[in-house]
């Protein structure tokens, strides 16, 4: 189908269309002004709120909206998976959700994430060291993507060398949303089979990592079975890689095309944490999803059971009701009440890890390459991922400019 996205965006938007992938911001701005809760018949029915207040209201309403699936596809996961859902706790509703989440939170607390700073810094330096003699490289494929893969592999207890295997699974799950159900199930089963091998190995040889932790963990006095462990490990892989890769890449993309911001951060690296919050606001990588539980009217919109909600935190972050000059990237923006890590009970459990990785990745990049720019001014030279996680996947950078 070759339709003009902008002509009928309020009734026929598609978050995987080329126009949306290349530049979704004008689409959201138009909808926020004319049709703030839009509907499309695609994917069996999907609603798109673009105002912060509506995104927040839906994120906080677990009575009318279920997290049974959080990736919009042409299929709905079986009801029998509730209350855990396919990948607990992101796919879980209350009350099961709280126990599954609290089990994970201590591992991702700021105190524990701080311990990963030295190893993360060392990975970044190693990657940058390998590029020292080059004028042009792909900062998305050769730098940003490797950082979360290595960090999460070590945290979970999976071989770093399997990075290509994880990235393949993650890509299929997040970007292969239009593929037939059989193929999607096959991908998921292959991921579970891969993880089961490592779970068996951890049962035989326990160690100090997340897989061994989950094998010992209990919910309501009962150990998790291996299927639950595999699905939670799968979630951490899927949630921890493309998301952070996208945030690091989008930040570098911004700095490559905005020399004044780059120079400010080089001159004063103590500004980087504040700048990271602004990059997270302006280029928030993650859009979540919900399913409508039962027929329900929201803001005058007749939502039908099993229709999707595209829960666009990135659109909420551009709402002028909440943010002054929302379309401008102000690296010292204050206050910055952004929703990049979601709102409500499903706030990204890995947010402290992601922030640390983005900060360290930028600190090290700016130290290694204080001067850089886009290698090719043509916007088509940079390509962006399709679907609910948005970030640059090809980002040619010229250094020493």
């Amino acid at each position, binding site marked *: 189908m070759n339709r003009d996205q902008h002509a009928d965006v309020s009734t026929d938007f598609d978050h995987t269309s080329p126009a949306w992938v290349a530049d979704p911001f004008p689409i959201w701005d138009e909808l926020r002004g004319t049709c703030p809760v839009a509907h499309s018949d695609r994917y069996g029915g999907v609603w798109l709120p673009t105002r912060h207040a509506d995104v927040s209201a839906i994120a906080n309403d677990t009575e009318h909206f279920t997290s049974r699936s959080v990736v919009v596809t042409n299929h709905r996961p079986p009801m029998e998976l509730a209350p855990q859902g396919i990948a607990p706790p992101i796919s879980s509703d209350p009350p099961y959700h709280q126990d599954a989440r609290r089990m994970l*939170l201590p591992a991702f607390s700021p105190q524990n994430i701080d311990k990963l700073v030295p190893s993360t810094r060392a990975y970044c330096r190693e990657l940058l060291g390998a590029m020292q003699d080059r004028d042009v490289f792909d900062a998305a494929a050769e730098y940003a993507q490797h950082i979360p893969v290595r960090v999460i592999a070590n945290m979970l207890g999976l071989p770093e060398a399997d990075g290509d295997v994880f990235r393949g699974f993650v890509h299929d799950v997040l970007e292969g949303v239009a593929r037939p159900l059989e193929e999607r199930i096959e991908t998921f089963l292959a991921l579970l089979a891969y993880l089961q091998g490592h779970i068996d190995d951890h049962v035989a040889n326990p160690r100090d990592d997340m897989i061994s932790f989950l094998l010992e963990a209990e919910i309501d006095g009962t150990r998790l079975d291996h299927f639950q462990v595999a699905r939670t490990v799968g979630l951490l892989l899927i949630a921890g890689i493309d998301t952070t890769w996208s945030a690091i890449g989008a930040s570098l993309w911004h700095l490559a095309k905005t020399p004044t911001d780059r120079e400010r951060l080089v001159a004063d690296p103590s500004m980087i944490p504040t700048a990271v919050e602004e990059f997270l606001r302006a280029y928030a990588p993650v859009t979540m999803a919900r399913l409508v539980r039962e027929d329900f009217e929201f803001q005058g919109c007749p939502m039908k059971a099993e229709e999707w909600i595209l829960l666009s935190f990135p659109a909420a972050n551009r709402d002028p009701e909440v943010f002054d000059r929302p379309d401008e990237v102000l690296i010292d923006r204050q206050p*910055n*009440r952004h929703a990049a890590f979601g709102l*409500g009970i499903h706030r990204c459990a890995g947010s402290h890890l992601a922030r640390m990785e983005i900060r360290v990745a930028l600190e090290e990049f700016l130290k290694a390459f204080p001067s850089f720019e886009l290698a090719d001014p043509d916007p088509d030279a940079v390509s962006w991922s399709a679907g609910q996680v948005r970030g640059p996947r090809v980002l040619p950078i010229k250094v020493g400019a």
Partner: protein
Amino acid sequence: MKIQFDREKCQGHGRCYALVPSLFECDDEGYAVVNELGELDVAQVHGARLAADNCPEFAITVE
């Protein structure tokens, strides 16, 4: 002026204890804990407002 903190609304984003560690700490799960200070001095009011204005969940108010 005092900090009003709604523990039910806090989801552990951690903006408050990152920005104003003198007034907010985090517990073992990453949720915020307010240092019990009672009446705030001028500098503390400024810090408390900074935390309140950056909380994504509107869990902090200064009154």
